[in-house]
């Protein structure tokens, strides 16, 4: 990502063109607004946007939480591509940078969108929790064993941060309001792999065996290219689709 020979960046002017709209204000109409900043060493979009709010426009809305690339709050369109703003260096996307809120999700204001409601609905629909084998587990006893490789494989799919970048970059999600997205399909792959979950492919077919599930995917696979956590979405979606086709033919 970082280029070995970058020219000196400190002091260079950068220009951020930002989509502005405050739905809570009846007088607000969507518009673009440009802000000029002096680039500093190691400047990220988190630092740049915070500086704009502190020094140029205190009304600018955006969401940052961890500012370390692990919480998924700051997904936005960066020069037309969904990505995490907190770990995007301005020198890698500038000097002219266009920022817009993620599509598909409800706009809160400016660059802030409501991914939470969308993700909760998806979780409720796909029941994204382990459906336990036994009704009761005695907590005082040694835990059930799991192969170390399997635990790691489950964790790899569990690394999703629900940032919404895969949904924002998805052709199907733009057309089908109820499409579960790569985030949803990846969760099914995660629980399917987890031996603690008692659900069968028949159960999963009920959840994702239609056009709002795995058969809605057009295999454009922007999700795979855009995932900030490099989740293996391409292989997981293909794998789940094969399993669901087999289930559908039974």
């Amino acid at each position, binding site marked *: 990502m970082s280029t070995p020979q970058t020219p000196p960046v400190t002091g260079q002017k950068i220009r951020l063109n930002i989509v502005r709209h405050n739905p809570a204000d009846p007088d607000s109409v969507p518009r673009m607004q440009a802000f000029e900043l002096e680039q500093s060493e190691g400047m990220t979009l988190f630092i740049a946007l915070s500086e704009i709010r502190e020094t140029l426009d205190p009304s600018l809305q955006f969401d940052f939480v961890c500012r370390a690339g692990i*919480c998924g709050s700051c997904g936005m369109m960066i020069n037309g591509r969904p990505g995490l703003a907190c770990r995007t260096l301005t020198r890698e996307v500038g000097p002219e940078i266009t920022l817009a809120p993620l599509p598909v999700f409800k706009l809160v204001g400016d660059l802030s969108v*409501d991914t939470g409601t969308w993700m909760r609905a998806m*979780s409720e629909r796909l029941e994204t929790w382990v459906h336990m084998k036994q009704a009761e587990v005695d907590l*005082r006893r040694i835990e059930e064993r799991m*192969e170390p490789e399997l635990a*790691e494989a489950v964790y790899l799919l569990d690394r999703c941060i629900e940032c919404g970048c895969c949904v924002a970059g998805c052709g199907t999600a733009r057309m089908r309001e109820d499409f579960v997205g790569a985030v949803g399909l990846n969760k099914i792959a995660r629980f399917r792999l987890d031996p603690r979950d008692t659900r069968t492919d028949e159960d999963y077919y009920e959840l994702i065996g239609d056009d709002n599930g795995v058969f809605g995917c057009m295999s454009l696979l922007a999700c795979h290219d855009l995932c900030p956590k490099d989740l293996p979405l391409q292989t997981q979606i293909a794998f789940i689709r094969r399993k669901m086709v087999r289930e559908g033919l039974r």
Partner: protein
Amino acid sequence: MNVVYTDVLVIGGGLAGLRMAIGAKRRGHEVMILSLVPAKRSHSKAAQGGMQASLGNVIKGQGDNEDVHFEDTVRGSDWGADQQVVRMFVNTAPKAVRELAAWGVPWSRVRRGDRDVVINGKKVTITERDEAHGTVAQRDFGGTKKWRTCYVSDGTGHAMLNAVADRAIADAIPVHERTEALALIHDGSRCHGAVVRDLVTGELSAYLAKATAIATGGAGRLYRVTTNAVICEGMGHAIALETGVAALGNMEAVQFHPTGIFPAGILVTEGCRGDGGLLKDADGHRFMPDYEPEKKELASRDVVSRRMEEHIKKGKGAKSRFGDHLWLDITLLGEHHIRHNLREVFEICHHFLGVDPTRDLIAVRPAQHYTMGGVRTNHTGESPSLKGLFAAGEAACWDMHGFNRLGGNSVAETVVAGMIVGEYIADFCDRPGNDADIPTGLVREFLRREQARLDVIVHGSGTEDAGAIKAQMQEIMTGKVGIFRTGRDLEQAVDGLQKLLVRSRSIGLKARAPGANPELVTAYRVQRMLKLALCVAYGALQRTESRGAHYREDFPRRDDATWLRRTLATWKGEADSLPTLGYEPLDITRMELPPGWRGYGAKDYTDHAATAPRQAEVEAAKEKIKDRHELQHALMPYEHLLPERLRGRNERIDDRFAPAEPAAAGDSHEPLFVREGE
């Protein structure tokens, strides 16, 4: 008047809040969670390295048990912890790991046979036992005698939060995202809920409940340089303080983590050092063994952070345009280990430093990391002075960390306290006398008062800039209330913060558009943050000793004779410019582990008169009683303090239960089971 009723109102959607909510809900109470952000984005997510629980599965954890975990935690706290609470915690931590294992957390597991690890800078081959294969693995962390930290690669908090947040969804617990509690509604003795602001529309509502629980995490953003997320502004602490009734305990106890990346302050886990990483100076010299020959890089965080700053003061720091720093070297762990067990560290180094930690050194310097202080509670998690107010996790002073928390004990506390306090909240709601009986006049008055406070900011004649005041507060805290403290600096800090507090009463806004209004959010929060900053600075000024993370250069000794007591801060009147401090003594005559040397750091301290006699009693008991459980019970009984369903011993590979027997002789109560959600 917008009013919402529930049985239990949980403020904060991180691990502690979610786990409390699940506990209360499963006991049949209606629960609502308020959260600034979607629950899975809470700062619990950022816990990387792991959670301590004495499972003793790995070979380097063999022989570990509750007793060892207890002693490590009390020594880590520099004897500031409540030892009964520590006992409750260490006995429940293994149960918490096992509950989370059943809920789907993909804990890293033990693989049988030989493996290469790095210990004290050298490659060593260790052999894991056949019978441990597939059980939850542990890694080494600072200040621990055994490898005790259970982990999921270096995304432990992330994986725990996924599982617990999804369990809350399974249990149909509503999370009201993008909402903020601005004030607790109370009548001076009973808490009735909170005034809540919608962070999308800006509207206020009253949420009324039988029990209100604060689980809002830490207050790291009082400081300029912190590992904490931007939402960690201590608002739960602040609304408790503003009741004038609930007290904050030990706010001067602030932890600085040795390895914040420099200069951004983003955390890289203690697991880097636990797994064998080394700290080096400008000359590439490994300096920690010079200062701490026993524990080296793995002394407790307060000690390592002080040694690092001490070394930088000697001119041994590496120079950069942002100032001096030191190096963390994990290259010796090898690419495979880093790519599998330190993935987040790899990504953070790549994105924020532009370096590859498999080949390059990582620039680090200590950064504010953890708020040991919090809403003072008793062992049930309830405030002793405001009935119906509970707190758990980093926002609470329960008090298991005293003046320094061990790595891996905070994310453990979130779920353990969540389990315990969740049960006690359910008990509280079950008692008929605790039914909600709330005068509407009181609710209306609180709503009016909070709306008026906002109106003064939005429509008043103030001209002060909220962001500038906040930046100055953070500068004072980082500059004068940091790792090394002196009376002179602290006096200046208190003085400066008081002036800022006065100025914060005349904040004016540049932006007045309806909706969330981020500038307004900064404004009302900084007014509250300044009160917390004053609790920290003023408490630190008064405490004329050094204990754990609180280090006074002008009073370098730990002074048990005078200061073995907990600071309690209250804020009596809105016009006050200082907290009112009181003190609560810790009773040595009831301690299982009387004060002594920690095993690292300074050996210099002033004993309390009660220490020697208590030490003699403890020695005599050890002579007489050989069974560890009996001895523990004779010295400091605590089992009766745990909710009945959470009692009982923990099984280990080296301490197996008989196949169908109950956990321990004499256990007649119903054991705790995790049940499938409805």
